[in-house]
């Protein structure tokens, strides 16, 4: 249903004294973010071309792409990449599914549900460091609550975080526990954008619950879920504090996710040139994954315009 306006701009919008309106809206954000970050971004790329130890800054050597070549040969880096990939691919879908169904569950009126919705976000709110430490406590073999359940389920009494596979699994569990409410909140907000009539019409038609979910609700929520996944991905790729205090990257390097390795290089070994190179690689990977998620799912266009 197109506008009948025939002015020079497709949608009949006036320009602000020659400047297209969209620039007025985008300018503040663009200016602020650029002003703050352009130097750091360029500088960190600059750092990535140097062999640079933070305590010996005057001895830094320009090595162009050598850091990147080193990275590709660095077994620990590749291992961290693999761990990170696994983490993202396992944790995020689970968080999304749980978040979705809980959003449907709690999509009701009333003070009770308002309070529940706020309470259920507490894991997202808690300081990551405290979350990691608490999970460490919960997994204590002798008296941790989670250990208790694991024992009852037949796994015996073990130092969970000292076993590579369990430690990795627990790191994932910690994240799912902490972040599915984030997905829930986002999807819940998106749900309120679904026209009520559509939901009610489907109910009157007698469509089954699952049919409604798959044929009506999900398609409406595609952009919302895609955005939630994207935002979640951006942070999941950088997860650090929780894992650091929970396992320190161990045992060995069984839970040395990417940010832990970058942190190790940057702030334990102080090879900031090398760490910056890793940051660049992480950025490229993250962008690639984002293109994939955004795909056709997030429209940059207003609806039916």
């Amino acid at each position, binding site marked *: 249903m197109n506008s009948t306006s025939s002015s020079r701009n497709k949608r009949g919008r006036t320009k602000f004294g020659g400047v*297209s309106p969209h620039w007025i809206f985008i300018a503040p954000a663009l200016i602020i973010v650029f002003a703050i970050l352009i130097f750091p971004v360029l500088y*960190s790329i600059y750092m990535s071309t140097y062999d640079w130890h933070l305590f010996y800054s005057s001895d830094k050597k320009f090595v162009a792409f050598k850091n990147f070549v080193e990275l590709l040969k660095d077994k620990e880096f590749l291992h961290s990449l693999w761990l990170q990939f696994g983490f993202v691919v396992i944790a995020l879908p689970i968080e999304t599914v749980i978040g979705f169904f809980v959003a449907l569950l709690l999509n009701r009126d009333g003070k009770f549900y308002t309070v529940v919705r706020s309470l259920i976000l507490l894991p997202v709110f808690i300081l990551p460091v405290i979350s990691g*430490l608490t999970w460490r406590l919960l997994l204590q073999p002798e008296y941790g609550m989670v250990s208790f359940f694991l024992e009852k389920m037949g796994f015996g009494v073990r130092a969970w975080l000292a076993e590579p596979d369990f430690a990795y699994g627990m790191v994932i569990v910690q994240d799912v526990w902490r972040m599915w409410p984030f997905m829930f909140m986002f999807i819940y907000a*998106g749900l309120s954008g679904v026209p009520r009539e559509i939901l009610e019409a489907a109910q009157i038609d007698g469509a089954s619950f699952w049919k409604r979910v798959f044929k009506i609700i999900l398609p409406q929520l595609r*952009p919302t879920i895609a955005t939630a996944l994207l935002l979640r991905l951006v942070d999941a*790729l950088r997860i650090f504090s929780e894992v650091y205090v929970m396992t320190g990257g161990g045992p060995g390097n069984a839970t040395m996710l990417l940010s832990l390795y970058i942190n190790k290089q*940057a702030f334990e070994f102080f090879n900031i040139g090398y760490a910056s190179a890793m940051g660049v690689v992480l*950025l490229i990977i993250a*962008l690639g994954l984002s293109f994939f998620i955004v795909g056709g799912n997030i429209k940059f266009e207003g609806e039916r315009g």
Partner: protein
Amino acid sequence: MRRIKKKLLTLTIVVITLAVLIVELMPILVVISSGFKRDIDIWSKGPFYFKPTLESYKQVLSNEDLLISLKNSLFVGFISTLISIVVGSMASYGLTRYVFKFKETIAYMFLSFRMIPQISLVIPLYVMFSFLKLRDTLTGVILAHISFNIPYVIWLLLPFFAAVPCDYEEAARIDGATEMQVFWKVFFPLVSPGLVVASVFAFLMSWNEFLYALILSSVNAKTAPVAVNGLLGQYAPKWGQLTAAGTIMLIPVFVITLTLQKYIIKGLVSGGIKG
């Protein structure tokens, strides 16, 4: 018969809700209860057996350093959220409701700035802020925070802005509204659920943020996460105080979420325009 069935359904939902809530909040209960336990009780059997004590809270609440840092975090959180929401929503609107070249490039540029690890950016930011005399100022921390919150808000709001049907826009224009008015009076209210989510999480990101605050602040602009991390100690954390402080830190975000929820008005965008 139908009424009973409906009541049963409602009851089941409440029960399931409570079950989900309890399971999910179990670790949070451990954190909260630990704030009231002696250290020896935290590291021993059972979450329910303990001698309650207010010692940890007393120590936390009499820690000047910590209290000031909480104040700083509140200030930084509010201002950075405010700026990010206003500026971010405008940009998000601009990116979705207009057609122009480079819009996707700009959008992805914002995204990339958000995706660069903070570790890479913190050292040059420190250099930059030292030069600009912004080190250890609340302004500096706020600027650092909006640098990642603005892109976040922009992308968060994209689907919400995109979902608004054109009819609203056109109706407003026909009524003679300027572009700004279309944005503030029509779109801004319509994306309120998105704004609520954006506000809560932008605030949270700033509230819990550690690395920038650590490196860019010193004594005057110290924020809560830095002070609370001090409780980790060189060896073993002071568990009682750590969990007490952590619990206190939960309160502002929780209150904000509770208050803002009423702005998630449902079924707003119901096809067609009434009146």
